[in-house]
């Protein structure tokens, strides 16, 4: 905090009011979404018709709650499966990348590092269509050559996982690299002096040091996967993840069941986000 600088009271209070307004602006849409999850009306809008739990537990049309909405429940499961594979793949590759970039010097390292960062600045929809075009042409070539079908290369969950993995890996790499850079190499040397093998030393000393960052990267990957829309939209097949299902409903104008789903998502993401922050801080 900067002290000893004279500022007029009016300026100070205007500044504070601005900051307060800003946080109101941040909170407003989320609070609104949550509040209307409890409105006893079939539209997520005013007037307020009274409090109800129906959008969570209702089982009679039109009051069908989240927990009785088959399509939404199914898409949550789909999102979960996708998020699991994306997290697993991107943390695995991200960890390898971190070791490669932090510990090795080799020709072309600079170029590879820039290439590794590229997914951050490629719009998601472009990543989606380029993977769609490429996998389809590979599938066509293979099918022409062999006469077999290659469903995995057609829009569907495998492509969704690959599409999300293609850019989430960059985030995983950055999170894990940041932690690996703080590692004291003397610890590994000590293990080697005490007779450990290279791999033994990495497994016993370095990897446990990285676990918090790997955990944090996994949580970030799950969050990003769950909420990804642009890339998923281009690669989705018949099994739609939650964001796609919600988008289809939203376009048609749905009941406050969407508010109820959103409320659950807000709570879940806030909890996961905090968990990831705690994990990242634990070792620091």
């Amino acid at each position, binding site marked *: 905090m900067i002290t000893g600088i004279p500022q007029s009271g009016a300026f100070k209070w205007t500044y504070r009011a601005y900051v307060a307004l800003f946080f109101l602006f941040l909170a407003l849409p989320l609070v609104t979404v949550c509040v209307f999850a409890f409105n006893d009306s079939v539209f997520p809008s005013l007037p307020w018709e009274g409090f109800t739990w129906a959008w969570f537990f209702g089982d009679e049309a039109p009051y069908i709650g989240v927990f009785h909405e088959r399509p939404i429940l199914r898409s949550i499961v789909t999102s979960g499966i996708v998020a699991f594979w994306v997290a697993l793949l991107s943390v*695995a590759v991200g960890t390898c990348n971190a070791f490669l970039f932090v510990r090795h010097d080799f020709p072309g390292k600079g170029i590879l590092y820039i290439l590794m960062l590229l997914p951050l600045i490629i719009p998601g929809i472009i990543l989606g269509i380029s993977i769609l075009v490429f996998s389809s042409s590979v599938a066509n070539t293979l099918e022409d050559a062999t006469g077999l079908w290659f469903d995995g290369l057609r829009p569907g969950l495998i492509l969704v996982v690959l599409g999300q993995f293609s850019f989430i890996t960059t985030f995983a790499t950055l999170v894990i690299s940041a932690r690996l850079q703080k590692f004291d190499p003397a610890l590994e040397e000590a293990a080697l002096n005490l007779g450990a093998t290279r791999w033994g030393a990495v497994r016993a000393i370095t990897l446990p040091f990285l676990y918090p960052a790997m955990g944090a990267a996994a949580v970030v990957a799950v969050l990003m996967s769950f909420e990804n829309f642009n890339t998923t939209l281009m690669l989705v097949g018949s099994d739609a993840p939650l964001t796609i299902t919600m988008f289809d409903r939203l376009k048609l104008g749905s009941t406050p069941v969407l508010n109820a789903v959103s409320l659950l998502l807000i709570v879940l993401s806030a909890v996961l986000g905090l968990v990831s922050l705690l994990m990242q801080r634990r070792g620091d």
Partner: protein
Amino acid sequence: MPVADRSKPTFYLLLAPLLLWLVTLIILPHVGMFIVSLREKVGVREYETSFANYAVFFNEPLYWNTFARTAYMSIAATVLTLLIGFPIAYYIAKLTRGRSKTTLFLMCLIPFWVSELVRTFGWMILLRETGIFSNLLQYVGLADAPVEMLYNDAAIMVGLVYTSMLFMVVPLVTTLDSLDDSLIEAGYDLGASGVAILREIVIPHAMPGIVSGCIVVFMLSLGNYLTPILLGGKDSLWFTGLIYSQFITRFNWELGSAFGFLLLALSSVIVFLGLKLTRQSLGKTMGQA
């Protein structure tokens, strides 16, 4: 780092996943997309290499108007986000400390862990004709009939700024945090005005954060699909919407690929210019983001 295992097998074992990922999911798909964009359909399953798809883009005013509109709306959203976010970042980094600093920072983060769809949905409830703002205006007597605030450019702008605020505030807080307070105090002691200090000390120091924030916000706005579709309504075209309709609705992958490549080229050129003008490097600004 010298202590590392420099043996060849380990090195290749670590290099393999990186190359596999970059080549099969980033490089080849983009090369493939470019090749498809150069294919002109001349018959059933018959193609010729030409720039015909790009010619379609330049000959159809709707296409390049949408392209230009997407670009300048994204630039406007970036500038607005910077102007709104900078004082907030300065407040968090320089005018608070300890627990309140952490709390404010976390409060900035939480909305952005939430799905973009949910945030956009929130704005729809606020802005629509039967929404909160419309009712509020009628309640206080500023309007006698419901007001529709959705489906216009201002609504898109609100959505874009809201969606990307975090990506501006976080890098700004990080760079401003590293600015030594005594430099600002020294400026005051030497008689500089607030504006002069901002221009001579604070902004130059925060430049890497400003550039990285602007790049990310610009990219996110340019590539946004949800916000323009849901908040902008049917008439407000966004370039990603055109790409989507070429691919999914019309199944014209050749033209869609050309559009995709143009959007990629536009974003790359603007990011490149931004980095050159401010003498920053991609590795330096994005690596720490």
